[in-house]
């Protein structure tokens, strides 16, 4: 009895979690003008419309571009700082680590607002680069925290061994530390990618003519309910699921010891 109730409850929660996505995908195949019941389809006309919309395809390319570059930079800075804090005794280390993770506690809206005013004041125009800088700000603390948490003492011993065998500091870092920590580096990079790929408000505030996909989708919403939005949403969903599967296969596969 308790088991049956548990199963029903879990199914109800799954239903709630999946409801909007199911509706989104179903009505992306709508044949008529509105993504509301009754369903007339299936039709691919709205997918066609998405692929013929240069703003959306440009937005897609811009999003990938910003996500890859900003995540690579966030991972690099996060890795270097995690290594520095884990391997050296620096004064005020705890305070500085706290400072690095501070952006995690501030909402994206406020980070975006600050950068908007700051760039405005410096006379820098809105651009994809500005949004990318914002994405590094939000993802750097995350990369730092993930990589720092994986820096254990056993790796320090291997690094010492490498140094004893004559490796320079930068050789230790690139040839010993980075390969040992690659799951953490990959996790940091990948999480940053997904956050950047999905980020709206910073990109909305800091870009103007060339912008990212979430902002272009937002612009579509002004037209109200529209199956084209469903189609682009379903495509984004598909791409993200593919990325998730890749992540799952690469990061969590059991490695031979």
């Amino acid at each position, binding site marked *: 009895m308790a088991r049956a109730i548990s199963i029903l409850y879990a199914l109800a929660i799954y239903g709630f979690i999946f409801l909007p996505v199911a509706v989104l995908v179903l009505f992306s195949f709508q044949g008529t003008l509105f993504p509301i019941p009754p369903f007339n389809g299936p039709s691919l006309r709205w997918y066609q419309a998405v692929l013929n919309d240069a703003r959306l395809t440009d937005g897609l390319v811009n999003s990938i571009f910003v996500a890859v570059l900003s995540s690579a930079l966030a991972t690099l800075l996060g890795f270097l700082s995690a290594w*520095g804090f884990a391997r050296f005794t620096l004064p005020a280390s705890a305070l500085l680590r706290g400072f690095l993770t501070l952006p995690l506690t501030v909402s994206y809206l406020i980070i975006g607002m600050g950068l908007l005013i700051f760039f405005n004041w410096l006379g820098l125009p809105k651009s994809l680069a500005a949004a990318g800088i914002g994405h590094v700000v939000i993802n750097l603390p995350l990369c730092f925290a993930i990589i720092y948490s994986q820096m254990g003492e056993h790796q320090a011993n291997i690094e010492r061994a490498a140094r004893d065998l004559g490796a320079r500091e930068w050789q230790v870092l690139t040839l010993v530390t980075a390969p040992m920590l690659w799951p953490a580096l990959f996790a940091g990079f990948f999480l940053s990618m997904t956050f950047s790929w999905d980020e709206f408000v910073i990109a909305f505030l800091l870009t103007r003519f060339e912008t990212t996909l979430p902002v272009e989708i937002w612009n579509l919403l002004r037209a109200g309910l529209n199956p084209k939005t469903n189609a682009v949403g379903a495509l984004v969903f598909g791409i993200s699921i593919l990325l998730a599967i890749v992540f799952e296969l690469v990061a969590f596969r059991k490695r031979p010891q």
Partner: protein
Amino acid sequence: MSGARQPIAGWASVSPALLWTLVFFALPFVAMAAASLFPKGGDGLSLANYTQFFANPSYWRALTNSLEVTLVVALISILLAYPFAWILAFVVPERWQRLALMLAVLPFWTSYVVRSYSWLLVLAEKGIVNDTLLSLGLLAEPLQLANSRTGTVIGFVHFFVMLLTLTIFANLKQLSPNYRKAAADLGAGPVQAFLHVILPLTLPGIMVGAFLTFVLAIGDYITPQILGGNNELLMPQLIMMQIGRRGDFASASALSIILMLVVSVAYLLCARWLKIERA
């Protein structure tokens, strides 16, 4: 030679990240704080943007709306997520748990904007919910679900049920089964064991999730704007409105700083449960 005796290499490796955070996070924040003190159209330094917040009831209302929505969302999400996490941790067989969790996270791989939009499809006047209830004869008039606080709360709860399930699940899995056995041996019934042993031990998971809910929900612009509409404003909507419609960066800055102070207070209240530790 041990690394601990070469602080120069240490500084060299930590400084790029520190500089980045200083230049693109701390300085913009200072610029924003400074901007908030020079009201638009005013003559120089003034606290007018802050006093206006307390004097103007519609501004004050945006903060209380935000707090109300966030607290309601956190509460509903905890109540829905806890039993779900429990079922995943203790009812679902061990080898299916990973799959069950992945399944629960799957819908959140859509973009955030798209997810809010898909709730609009569900909740709209002619959407799935109203269509179903009307055709079943359970309703005479469509419910106002979208463009209302209900819409905002549903959109938020959807995301935070998933998030809290993850934090509570992780916490439940860390508990040794011995706690439950010990409680039972000492004569506690299942309800007593839960209230006095399991629940206090899972408080950290609940608090981490609740804090994340608070921080992420109170600063979010997308969900209230798409699902709540402009009938009542939450803080982020008010801030965006200052920039968008009025071009008033000073007022938007002041409101952002007030919002940040509110989040900081919440952080201090939860600080003992939120620690980043090195393994």
